[in-house]
């Protein structure tokens, strides 16, 4: 059995908008090994969620469509495969949890039934067997008095409890890959800590892989072994988590790390002011010739505006879409 579980190669996804065709995901490549946790970080609109939805074949078409690329999951290409195959993979081999548990749970179905459903659909369990396992899972995700709550509806539960139900639903079929899209963003910080520790525990116990999509660098530092940073539809940097935080290469990654208030409330360099990334993310329909970050980059020079950089290897396991690797003298010391 190969180590590689998921391989995304040069994936491009675009949407038709009133302002023209917008490329939400632009030649994105990354891979995920069995048992690994890969963090995908980026700000709103960077294409991280669209990438995740492409894996599951959930891009609404029209207006969206996958332009090119491969998504290989255990040696099968998920792009263009028949929808029955995709339906089998989805929910059984690959499961997903979303940011807002209220909108992704069915409001008119008791939670026990919802957790049991994938077991009946994918594993062909009888209703009573499925409900029995569902109750076990609700206990495993630490819903208090789980067996009594099988008949509860989502609105009876708090946000944290709903996210636990989502996790139980995702896990019942023992997926090989769990995609978690901002799973704790809507939750309070103490509840976030509970959900993250629950996910770590289940992941280790079941040996599955986790694709964790988040804008929160703290969550990534705590959870991921490798990180992909996305900006304006592209992967701009990829590295092992320690390298990314210790030796970020891409100016955008550096900017993100510096713009967070440090522990104890001071910025990382000890000053009162935070380092900010000037400007705003370009509109998705904007045509940019060179590097997409050049307009906000403190180090940008002529070449950055003329030609888009490819992925360059920085060191073992680390790559970045940035010309500075070939022109290190252009990196400004003061910025």
């Amino acid at each position: 059995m190969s180590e590689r579980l998921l391989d995304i190669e040069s994936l491009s996804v675009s949407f038709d908008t009133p302002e023209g065709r917008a490329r939400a995901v632009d030649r994105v490549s990354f891979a995920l090994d069995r048992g690994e946790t890969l963090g995908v970080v980026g700000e709103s609109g960077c294409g991280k969620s669209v990438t995740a939805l492409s894996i599951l074949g959930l891009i609404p078409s029209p207006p969206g469509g996958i332009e090119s690329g491969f998504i290989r999951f255990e040696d099968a290409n998920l792009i263009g495969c028949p929808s029955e195959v995709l339906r089998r993979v989805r929910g059984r081999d690959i499961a997903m949890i979303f940011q807002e548990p209220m909108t992704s749970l069915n409001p008119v179905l008791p939670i026990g039934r919802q957790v049991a459903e994938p077991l009946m659909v994918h594993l062909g369990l009888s209703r009573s067997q499925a409900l029995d396992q569902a109750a076990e899972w609700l206990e495993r995700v630490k819903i208090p008095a789980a067996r009594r709550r099988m008949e509860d509806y989502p609105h009876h539960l708090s946000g944290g409890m709903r996210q636990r139900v989502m996790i139980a639903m995702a896990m019942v079929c023992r997926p090989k890959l769990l995609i978690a899209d901002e799973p704790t963003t809507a939750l309070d910080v103490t509840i976030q800590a509970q959900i993250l520790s629950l996910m770590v525990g289940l992941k280790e116990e079941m040996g599955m892989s986790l694709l964790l999509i988040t804008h929160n660098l703290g969550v990534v530092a705590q959870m991921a072994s490798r990180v992909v940073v996305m900006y304006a539809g592209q992967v701009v940097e990829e590295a092992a988590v320690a390298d990314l935080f210790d030796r970020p290469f891409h100016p955008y990654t550096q900017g993100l790390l510096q713009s967070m208030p440090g522990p104890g409330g001071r910025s990382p360099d000890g000053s009162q002011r935070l380092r900010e990334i000037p400007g705003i993310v370009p509109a998705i329909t904007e045509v940019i010739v060179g590097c997409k970050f050049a307009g906000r980059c403190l180090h940008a020079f002529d070449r950055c505006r003329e030609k888009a950089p490819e992925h360059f290897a920085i060191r073992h396991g680390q790559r970045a879409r940035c010309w500075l690797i070939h022109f290190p003298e252009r990196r400004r010391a003061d910025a």
Partner: protein
Amino acid sequence: MPEIPLLEVIDIAKHFPLGGGVFSRPSAWIKAVSGVSFAVRRGERFGLVGESGCGKTTVGRMILRLMEPNRGRIEFDGQDILTLDRAAMGPFRRRMQIIFQDPYSSLDPRMTVEQIVTEPLRAGNLRLARLERRRIATELLDKVGLRSADLDKYPHEFSGGQRQRIGIARALCVRPELIVADEPLSALDVSVQAQVINLLQDLGEEYGLSFVFISHDLGVVQHLCDRIAVMYLGAIVELAPVHRFSRKPCHPYTEALLAAIPVPDPHRRSGRLAMEGDVPSPIDPPAGCSFHPRCRYAFDRCRVEAPPLVSAAEDHAVACWLNDGKGLRGA
């Protein structure tokens, strides 16, 4: 003689009725805020932190009299504002302004930027010539880092961060002394958050503003504020200068809140167990200390008697029996 604080909140409470109609009594009361007191000095940035439902937003709204408390007193510059009628309240309204969380819903989509940022002038019945209004609007946009070319645009033409700048310009328009900022950063991306934090800091210094900064994000509040009050289930559980917070949190809830923040450092992964349980319902809060069901230090007394907010050290107050006014809990 001690200086009169700019804002003093004394034992305010707000209970919302649950159920009940025109003829029937409410079936229960949500105790959103139950007895909160604090003072904000001139030029001070005061942080109010807590998780959803702790009552922090309700406190902010009561300060601005967007909501009337059921009991308690609010003094602005020594004047009890809760007794003022609409007309007498007018001048005070100009001295305090609010910045909202959601930069999308808090700007009227049919108004131009110029109209939005100068609206407080109109609301305050300050009639100005058109040119004068435009001059003020231009100056305000310049202060918050937008261009005068933006004056005639509409809110939908701006990104979230830019909209928040418009909201800030509007708050500054009448030269207030106090700004209540209710989660002004939580709808923004990290890199934009830093821009807005720096802007608030600069403007605060330039105009000598006082802030009541309401947020769930202890990291941001620690960066921005001088003193912090932590709220839990409608009451302040700890109040201290920022430098004492990270070094010596005294209340077990503050400790848990700090420990729950995911540290952006892969070399410092917390092995600590997350605090168990959910925040209890404010309709039927637990007896005794409202935090005791989740507290790992709780003992008998905590379950029957609510601890008062008492001074644990200079300028540092804690509502916890472990401190009991006798000093800090031993490490």
